[in-house]
């Protein structure tokens, strides 16, 4: 039944990388096939080999990589084609789009130039005809004003628009198979939904097959006919999407499905004391002008937003990138200059300077998104966690400090024996635990969580969410939880604020916001994030 009816068939594919530490086997003899018109999802966490499988098919492996086995396109083994034969297939019959829309286009050429090039090359047509075709595909991917956009450079477009251009380049030559490697991961949730709809629509219209690499099960559910689940270089389960979701067989698949964020938080009583209260907060950035360059230009990053955070409460702030949610939180902690009264624990801290703020910092902590960048690589994890104690409780002995560090490690679920290790020796999830330990060792009252789970795989994400919940319970912490991941916010927060362009669009309980949104923008956001619970095609 396999053989010629498949667009792509992968047999016993192995991908090895020759590194200084020896040979690493990233893909360990997998089999896969894609039929005409079919959408296949390859699911797995980082390091599962899902991307490398596709890079091998496109012969795009890094120079130390080597693929053996067969990857056949309509019977021809892509791994053994000559370069010129291969380039007849790549970009014409099989195309690929990538995760990084911001960097995947050449910054130095116009969109039109980059779109026309593969058309001219593969169809052997002149510039005039290629231009017409290019405008046509730009229309197809729903870029507004395609003629004018032909002259734009990538830097003049948003991430979503760039990804549309990438898709346009990929479908311009009417391919048989489009491979999409996490094409929406770097995009905001509403844009994500638009791109997914576009791709599903294009697949139908052009009758091509699609391979979708992702770690997001929502996307799989929405778009795929069949699923391959990969773990550590092997396919551990495969089957129809519906069957896999209804009845997962392999424990890993079950764990993946169970890792969807669940649960909800009970609201705090109305009598709970207010911890942090910002009234009519405004943050303005100067973004242009200045000496000899004309009038200054200002951007209102936060525009008259009020926040009231009670003890034990979790306020979720949601919104797309650029909506001002992080800036608002930083302004509340007096980390960026702002206007508007801020009360912390009953005191107005609006006019406090660095000196006056310092003793309060202990009680106002923040955990950042990037578990790689926010820990100093030259300090041990123990030093990182206890650094705040040196400032805020300088009188305690080093022995006591060490005891507190060990205690904090235990509290965030890390082995205290590891506190002499450096950050790079920990995984992403463990590093985020270190960052959390660093915050809670000071016994804070308010913790700002700025996208603390966004850089993590779903399973790890769930563990961090559980940890944050436990800590909140144990210490009666107040959280400002910033995220663009609505599923996580829904599970964590008892009050939600929706932000757009520096303004607060809507706020309310999770039930109100998620189930009965009033504002158009909130409705769109919810539709984008949650309309995908129906299985594709159903």
């Amino acid at each position: 039944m396999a053989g010629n009816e498949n667009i792509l068939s992968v047999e016993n594919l192995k991908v090895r990388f020759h590194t200084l530490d020896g040979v690493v086997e990233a893909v360990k003899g997998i089999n896969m096939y894609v039929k005409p018109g079919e959408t296949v999802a390859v699911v797995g966490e980082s390091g599962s080999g899902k991307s490398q499988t596709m890079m091998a098919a496109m012969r795009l492996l890094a120079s130390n990589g080597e693929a053996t086995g067969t990857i056949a396109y309509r019977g021809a083994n892509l791994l053994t084609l000559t370069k010129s034969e291969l380039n007849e297939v790549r970009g014409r019959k099989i195309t690929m789009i990538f995760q990084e829309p911001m960097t995947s286009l050449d910054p130095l050429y116009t969109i039109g130039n980059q779109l026309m090039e593969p058309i001219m090359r593969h169809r052997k047509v002149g510039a005039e005809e290629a231009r017409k075709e290019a405008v046509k595909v730009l229309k197809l991917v729903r870029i507004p004003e395609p003629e004018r956009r032909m002259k734009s450079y990538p830097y003049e477009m948003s991430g979503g628009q760039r990804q549309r251009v990438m898709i346009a380049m990929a479908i311009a030559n009417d391919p048989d198979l489009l491979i999409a490697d996490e094409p929406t991961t770097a995009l905001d949730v509403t844009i994500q939904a638009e791109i997914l709809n576009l791709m599903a629509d294009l697949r139908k219209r052009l009758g091509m097959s699609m391979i979708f690499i992702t770690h997001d099960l929502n996307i799989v559910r929405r778009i795929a006919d069949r699923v391959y689940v990969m773990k550590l270089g092997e396919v551990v389960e495969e089957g129809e999407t519906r069957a896999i979701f209804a009845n997962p067989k392999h424990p890993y698949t079950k764990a993946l499905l169970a890792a969807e964020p669940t649960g909800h938080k009970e609201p705090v009583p109305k009598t709970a004391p207010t911890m942090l209260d910002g009234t009519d907060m405004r943050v303005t950035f100067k973004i242009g002008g200045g000496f000899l360059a004309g009038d200054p230009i200002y951007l209102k990053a936060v525009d008259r937003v009020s926040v009231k955070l009670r003890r034990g409460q979790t306020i979720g702030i949601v919104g797309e990138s650029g909506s001002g949610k992080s800036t608002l939180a930083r302004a509340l902690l007096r980390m960026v200059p702002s206007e508007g009264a801020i009360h912390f624990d009953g005191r107005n801290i609006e006019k406090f300077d660095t000196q006056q703020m310092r003793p309060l910092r202990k009680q106002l902590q923040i955990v950042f998104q990037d578990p790689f960048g926010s820990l100093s690589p030259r300090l041990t994890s123990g030093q990182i966690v206890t650094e705040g104690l040196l400032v805020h409780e300088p009188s305690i002995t080093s022995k006591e400090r060490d005891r507190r560090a060990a205690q904090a490690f235990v509290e965030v679920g890390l082995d205290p024996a590891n506190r002499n290790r450096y950050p790079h020796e920990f995984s992403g999830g463990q590093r985020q635990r270190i960052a959390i330990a660093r915050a809670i060792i000071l016994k804070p009252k308010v913790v700002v969580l700025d996208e603390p789970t966004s850089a993590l795989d779903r399973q790890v994400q769930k563990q961090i969410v559980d940890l944050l919940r436990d800590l909140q319970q144990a210490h009666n912490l107040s959280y400002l939880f910033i995220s663009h991941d609505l599923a996580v916010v829904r599970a964590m927060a008892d009050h939600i604020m929706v932000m757009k362009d520096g303004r607060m669009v809507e706020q309310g309980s999770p039930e109100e916001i998620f189930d009965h949104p009033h504002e158009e923008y909130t409705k769109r956001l919810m539709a984008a994030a949650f309309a995908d619970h129906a299985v594709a095609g159903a």
Partner: protein
Amino acid sequence: MLRYVFRRLLTAIPTLFVIVTISFFLIRVAPGGPFNQERGLNPVIKANLERQFGLDQPLWMQYLHYLNNLLHGNFGPSYNLPDFTVAELFKVGLPVSIQVGASALILALIIGTILGVIAALRQNKGADYAVIATATAGSTVPTFVIAPIYQLIFATTLALVPVATWGGGALVNKIGPIVTLALPQIAIVARLMRGSMIEALRSHHIRTARALGLSDWSIIVKHALRGALLPIVSYSGPAAAALLTGSIIVETIFQIPGVGRYFVEAALNRDYTLVMGTVVVIALFTILFNLIVDILYAAVDPRVRYD
């Protein structure tokens, strides 16, 4: 863009003023003067000379006087070459230095870029190691070693070119100095180019180009090389300013009537006006070439905008 150029030229004025002021007083701090000679000059004659050139006046007067002259385009007379004004010396010497320096620069940019690209494409293979080894050798061997070796081989032994003559600037006499000046620059450009090209070839948009089945030529020249040239553009600004204003070593060994030797000779002889003239010329070249680099940058990279 024109407004930007105008603004840059405007800011060059205070820059030049600061440079002139600092160098004016700095060279005066050095002990001795233009008329201190080994055997000692008759004090009366020395006093006469100093009066003639205004060196007997208070320093601040001399400074204001010099500034005033400079504003009128007058660099003053040379103290040690009394038959010439500083302007005349540059009028004769500068074209020679520019000609030799510019030829060396162009040669270095072309050959260095090609070698660097070849090395990047053959990364960690024979050709790469050959280019890197040559480049390392090239940037470690100083010009005062290259120049005599060149003369030894091509002039003395093989007698293909004359030994150390300028002879009115015949082409055959220029080969030596141009090659000598170019060799270390080729080495630097090749290394820079290799690094930035390797980085460019690893970038995401090159992966896209490969995935679209574009030809190697298009990938390498159109999509990788253009961006990879930016570091070379940055480097060539200061390099041009240095090369075009002459090199004392090369000019001395090959007997070239350029301006490169003036800086050192004038400083040693306390030829104040000639030192100042050289400073102004080098500063002007540096400002000018940095401006050209910035304009070229905008031409290569559309994201760079000036207004």
